[in-house]
């Protein structure tokens, strides 16, 4: 090796004394109050919201047409009244009940379908055909049919929600199960896990990131579909949901309350998506290092 085509430079050897970590001072030091504040996503989002509210208020006052565009403060007042009189909470609870029923029926059917799909070839084919067929169909398009079958009332809404949840969740669960690594499967089986114990002990937790993504998509579909469905055919057996509230207030030209209803729809969606699902994520997939963020 002494004779190479590429002349190597002659350089002296050096040695350094390495300090013990203790002598290096602050290797890890806590962030200052403002650094922490800026790193906090909630604070940054809050600032944006305040700015948007300010612009809204100024523009609405300048426009001065409360029937089509109420001010921010009027909307807040309508919102407060709606809550104080108990109308919005009552409507919200009707909507949420319908939603929870539909969501869980949808999840159950999705779980059964997926289990059949992972255990048999014909099941896989069934699932992929069905999802390919029904996934592109907007749930709301089924509403006329649902009304025909189940009449005016909660069952029709539940039917539509089940449809909107089912295919998205089943698709995600299935691809989640398929992507569980061969090594994890083999590890589970050397422990002696079989059948349902294997599904619950290995497959479901290993596929949890995909399952959770499916739950989130399913939730988002269901929430939007339900509000839209309620708007379209409104009241059922004397008690309407949040969509009906919005529709009703528009009919009486109480535009501030329409805005209040919309804000409630947004707030609930946000709370579920950004708080509840985030919390589940933080406690599971993030903690386990299965999802970054």
């Amino acid at each position, binding site marked *: 090796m002494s004779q190479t085509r590429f002349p190597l430079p002659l350089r002296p050897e050096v040695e350094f004394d390495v300090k013990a970590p203790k002598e290096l001072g602050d290797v890890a030091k806590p962030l200052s109050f403002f650094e922490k504040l800026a790193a906090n996503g909630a604070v940054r989002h809050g600032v944006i919201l305040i700015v948007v509210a300010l612009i809204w208020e100024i523009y609405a006052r300048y426009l001065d047409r409360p029937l089509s565009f109420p001010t921010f403060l009027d909307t807040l007042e309508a919102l407060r009244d709606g809550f104080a009189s108990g109308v919005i909470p009552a409507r919200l609870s009707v909507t949420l009940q319908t939603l929870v029923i539909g969501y869980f029926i949808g999840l159950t059917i999705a779980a059964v379908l997926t289990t059949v799909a992972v255990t048999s070839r014909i099941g896989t084919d069934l699932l992929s055909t069905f999802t390919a067929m029904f996934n592109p169909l907007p749930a709301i398009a089924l509403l006329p049919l649902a009304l025909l079958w189940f009449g005016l009332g909660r069952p029709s809404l539940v039917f539509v929600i089940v449809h909107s949840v089912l295919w998205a969740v089943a698709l995600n669960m299935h691809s989640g199960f398929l992507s569980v*690594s061969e*090594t*994890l499967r*083999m*590890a589970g*089986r*050397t*422990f*002696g*896990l079989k059948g349902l*114990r294997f599904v619950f*002990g*290995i497959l479901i*937790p*290993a596929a*949890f990131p995909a399952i959770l993504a499916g739950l989130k998509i399913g939730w988002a579909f269901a929430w939007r579909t339900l509000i839209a469905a309620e708007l379209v055919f409104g009241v059922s057996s004397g008690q309407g949901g949040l969509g009906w509230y919005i529709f009703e207030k528009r009919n009486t030209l109480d535009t501030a309350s329409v805005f209040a209803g919309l804000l409630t729809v947004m707030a609930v969606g946000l709370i579920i998506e950004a708080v509840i699902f985030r919390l589940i994520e933080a406690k*599971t997939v993030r*903690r*386990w*290092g*299965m999802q970054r963020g």
Partner: protein
Amino acid sequence: MALMMDQALAQTTSSSPLLSVDGVTLQYKTPDHLVTATYRISFDIQRHERFVLLGPSGCGKSTILKAMAGFLYPVEGCITLKNHVVDGPGPDRMMVFQEFDQLLPWKTVEQNVAYPMRVNGIGAQDAKARALDALAKVNLSKFADAYPHMLSGGMKQRVAIARAMAMKPDVLLMDEPYAALDALTRRKMQEELLQLWEDIGFTLVFVTHSIEEAVVIGSRIVLLSPHPGQVRAEINCAHLGLNERASPEFAELTGRISHMLFDGQNVAH
């Protein structure tokens, strides 16, 4: 040397083997190929042996190990454990895989080690105690509450080893468990494994492609030919361990093995 042979001979004739691989051909079916990974492999493993499978990359070492674990079925020949044909995986043959993703990411290190014991009906207290004990042996007590994604590749491998050892299986199958470790840690783990073997005397099947490691760990080595794997030789080396690494006998044996493996090809080692 001759004495060793006689002893080995006496053993094989006196007791039936714990694990026996008899004329086993293993194949993989891919959509457009039929890959033969090993061809008519036969060997017996006696109780308490430290049995090493040695061969070049791709010769089918992992494949045989997986077949012994019960994940693959031979297309020809059969594998028997205690005179029963192996027909599926089970906790009597714990396996340490070559891959890094063998730990359950949703369980802490300690839970990972305790989980197989819990699955097999060992009480929570007992399982925890054994798990902590096994973790101490692989020097990871400090990380008992960490999640696998916080560990380095080598540390994950050590957790997998602790998990397998804590189960006290009939046979411990290890697939290149130390390949990912730095030289120092590897040496330490080899010492630990041999010490543990002195303590418990489990039967070990160990896959490696390092000749030096094979001689240090093994009491008997099976040499496999390059793909598709066939048995090239069986060699005794129980008399050579960590302390004999500098001896001429050690060098002579590694030279002989390397010659057989590469069949006169000029490969520096």
